[in-house]
């Protein structure tokens, strides 16, 4: 029988790192491709009642019209985007629980409508509907 001598290995044995690096590179590429750094949030959408459908939720609401070119009409009066929050706050003081009905022009990109809805919420409105 032949035994190897214990305790004194002949040479220094290096662990081969090549296969480890292969695996680690694969992991790196996987995580680079699947990771997204976007932070998603959500916004509740009140579903509008269609015209002529039961008790209209349009009644007593404030109409916010959003036109192309960033023009906004708040209850028929022109307002700049930066004034919307303040005007909303004022009208909520007069009439709490006001429903705000946002009605964008056809062809208006969603982003511009969301900006207006953001401002309404910033002014304290919690009932915001979107209609056409």
């Amino acid at each position, binding site marked *: 029988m032949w035994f190897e001598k214990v305790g004194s290995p002949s040479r220094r044995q290096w662990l081969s790192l090549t296969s480890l690096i292969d695996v680690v590179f694969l992991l790196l590429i996987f995580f680079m491709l699947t*990771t997204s750094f976007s932070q*998603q949030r959500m916004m509740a959408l009140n579903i509008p009642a269609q015209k002529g459908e039961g008790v209209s939720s349009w009644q007593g609401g404030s109409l916010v019209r959003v036109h192309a070119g960033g023009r906004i009409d708040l209850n028929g009066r022109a307002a700049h985007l930066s004034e919307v929050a303040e005007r909303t706050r004022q009208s909520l003081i007069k009439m709490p629980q006001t429903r705000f009905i946002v009605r964008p022009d056809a062809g208006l990109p969603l982003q511009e409508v969301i*900006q207006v809805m953001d401002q309404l919420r910033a002014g304290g409105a919690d009932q915001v509907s979107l209609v056409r």
Partner: protein
Amino acid sequence: MEFNYHRSKHSELDMTPLVSVIFLLIIFFLVAGTVRSPSFWEIEHPGSSSDARVAKKNLSIFLDQQGKRAVAQREVRNRYQLRYLIDEYSQKGEPPSIEIHADHRVDSHELVKLLEEVRSSGVKKIELITEVNP
């Protein structure tokens, strides 16, 4: 002059620092990011200051830049298909909660049309997915 032509016999590149850096990168991607759920189209969500965290929903509807719709990795071409998908959920019990992934460039009337159709199917809870403004 004398040059050292013959280096040591086993001149291998030392891989240890490379491995360390790559491990750091992996840990960075693991910790800093979230794994993206597969989506039917590449959709750029609208930016918003809304801060409600995304909760799991039964059904995701995708609305792309041209107003095309997709549910569950398939394009939905008409309102009856959408209705059928929602009714399928409703038969199991509650009407489904729905999240809408709409592109920020889509015509907002397309979103309203979609909302009206979803409403007529009896759905009460709809959330629009937005992105935190930079």
